[in-house]
């Protein structure tokens, strides 16, 4: 029984069957990659997981509880954090403030009025945020506007913000898309470090095979809205169906 159980999920957009009978099980404390060609339904699946889309049929259970029908922020509060393809951070806020917000969210829940006491006096939160930035090597930039950072650092910050919530499941949506090689490697190292240091489950959607094979313990291949195969990286590499459906396409592209 995995921490995330997707059963018989179907989703139609008009005439397009975006997801058909998707079954997926992500085991706790593993890194599980979901790959597939463009239009395979990866993003749709992700949006179902975080509550942005409601599937037509099927169930999605996280740690024994259904996530369907819950709002994205409620699902997040259950312990699922999401990293976006283009880093979504609070560009107008400083790096430190960016890091404090998820810590407040973890501590205080979805809404709480703390309208009088100064942020500076929340010493525990500040300390935790500082520590987190330290561990991400972003401490020097703590008073900068986050919008002014490099893309790689924005990515680190976003991942750090998700981690600050101590999620049980971290969803990554093509975390290295559009990145230079060096930044990609940094990100891989960061994710490896996270995997080693924490009890955390990571589900990653990725195009870049280098990233996938560096990180994943299990891989699900999605094609035309249906899971084709699910197996370990080594097995996937040689799987004929995958070559046909996915790698073949990549070669052609």
């Amino acid at each position, binding site marked *: 029984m995995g921490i995330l159980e997707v059963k018989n999920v179907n989703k139609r957009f008009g005439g397009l069957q975006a997801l058909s009978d998707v079954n997926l099980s992500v085991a706790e404390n593993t890194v599980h990659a979901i790959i597939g060609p463009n239009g395979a339904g990866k993003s749709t699946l992700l949006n179902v997981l*975080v509550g942005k889309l409601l599937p037509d049929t099927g169930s999605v259970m996280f740690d024994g509880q259904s996530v369907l029908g819950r*709002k*994205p*922020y*409620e699902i*997040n*509060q259950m312990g699922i*954090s*999401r990293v*976006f393809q283009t880093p*979504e*951070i*609070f*560009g*107008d*806020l*400083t790096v430190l*403030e960016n890091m*404090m*917000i*998820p810590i*407040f*969210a*973890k501590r*205080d*829940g*979805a*809404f709480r*009025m*703390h*309208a*009088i*006491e*100064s*942020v*500076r*006096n*929340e010493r525990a939160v500040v300390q935790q945020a500082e520590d987190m930035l330290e561990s991400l090597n972003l401490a020097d930039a703590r*008073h*900068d*506007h986050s919008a002014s950072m490099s893309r790689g650092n924005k990515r680190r910050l976003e991942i750090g*913000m998700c981690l600050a*919530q101590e999620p049980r499941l971290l969803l990554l949506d093509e975390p290295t898309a559009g990145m230079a090689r060096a930044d990609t490697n940094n990100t891989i190292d960061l994710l490896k470090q996270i995997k080693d240091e924490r009890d955390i489950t990571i589900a990653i959607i990725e195009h870049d095979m280098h990233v996938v094979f560096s990180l994943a313990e299990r891989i699900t291949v999605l094609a035309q809205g249906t899971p084709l195969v699910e197996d370990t990286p080594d097995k996937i590499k040689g799987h004929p169906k995958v070559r046909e459906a996915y790698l073949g396409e990549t070669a052609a592209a």
Partner: protein
Amino acid sequence: MLGLTRKDAILLAIVTVVALLAPFILNPFPTNSGFAQFNAGYPDLMQRFAIFGIFAIGFNILFGLTGYLSFGHAAFLGVGSYAGIWMMKLLTANIIPGIAASIVVAGLFALIVGFISLRRSGIYFAILTLAFAQMSYALAYSVLTPITGGETGLQLKLNDPRVLDGALAPGERAHANLFGLDMTSSIEMHFGAWQFTFNTGYYIAALVLVLAFYLSIRIFRSPFGMMLRAIKSNNTRMTYTGLNARPYALAAFVISGMYAGLAGGLMVAMDTQVGPERMFWTASGEVVLMTILGGAGTLIGPVLGAGLIKYMENIISKINSGILHEWFYWMPDGLEDFVITLVYPFVGKGWHLTLGIVFMLVVIFLPGGLVEGGQRLRRLAQGKRAKKSATQTNPAE
């Protein structure tokens, strides 16, 4: 100090000192000089500075922090005023219950309007708030006349019940007061050619302004304030960080509505009269303009913007051709007429023209509003040294 950083404490101290010394600062010219026209240190205008300052501070908590542009905030000011004057008519001319009622009623109204309007964002939100305010105005002007007094509004009357107050002596009128302290009472001080007026009402309004300003600093610097800025900055990240943006925005909306109600309550406390045009969309637009003009999202900007617009409305509009002739009497006749012809369209009845030009100049040359103007001056004064620190200024200054 007071839970503020040094920088904020200094800002608060400056605001407090300026508010206390306003009767001096705003009356820099001797009473008899030609420049006396520019003196603004008389009770009514000082009260208006304070009241519209409070209104704009409150509006800025919504607009400056969350980015939600309400185009109907005057409705809360108006509703607050009506609640205030009814308390003063029914209960007591003491301003405390009136102001309390203003805040509560405006807050409740804001809760309803905010709850509905915040289901939408951007321009759709703006139009929803505008629609509510315009409906309030139209109804108050017409079918709600029994409650609002319609066009002629409400004032204190001799035969109001005022159940908590004793009967009036013959010839006596009800005065807005604070435990007997009459809002209209003033002390005048003459110093040579200068004259300064210290008005009870103004000092109460100023005290409330300082408190309102202090509270807004606390809100800005609090985790709540940070969350509001987060909404403006990135609503998606907000949601996927497990935060429910709607109650945060609604809380900000209600708080700013209560600020507007407070301003409305103070208005009737200082000047016991209310009319519906206080809720017209132009009044809502005015507070938007005040906030942007001063600098949205900055602490002091809205107060400066409110001051500038009210100053123009009350001072520039009173300069008539007679006064121009007094100013330029020393010129040769032909030149005098020429200069007056040039200046005349911009003053007196042309004060709107000057206002429009000021809006355009400020927004073209000072994108951050008047506060940016101040910052540029300071940078200029500090020279190059400031260049480095400017990149590190706190965004919510």
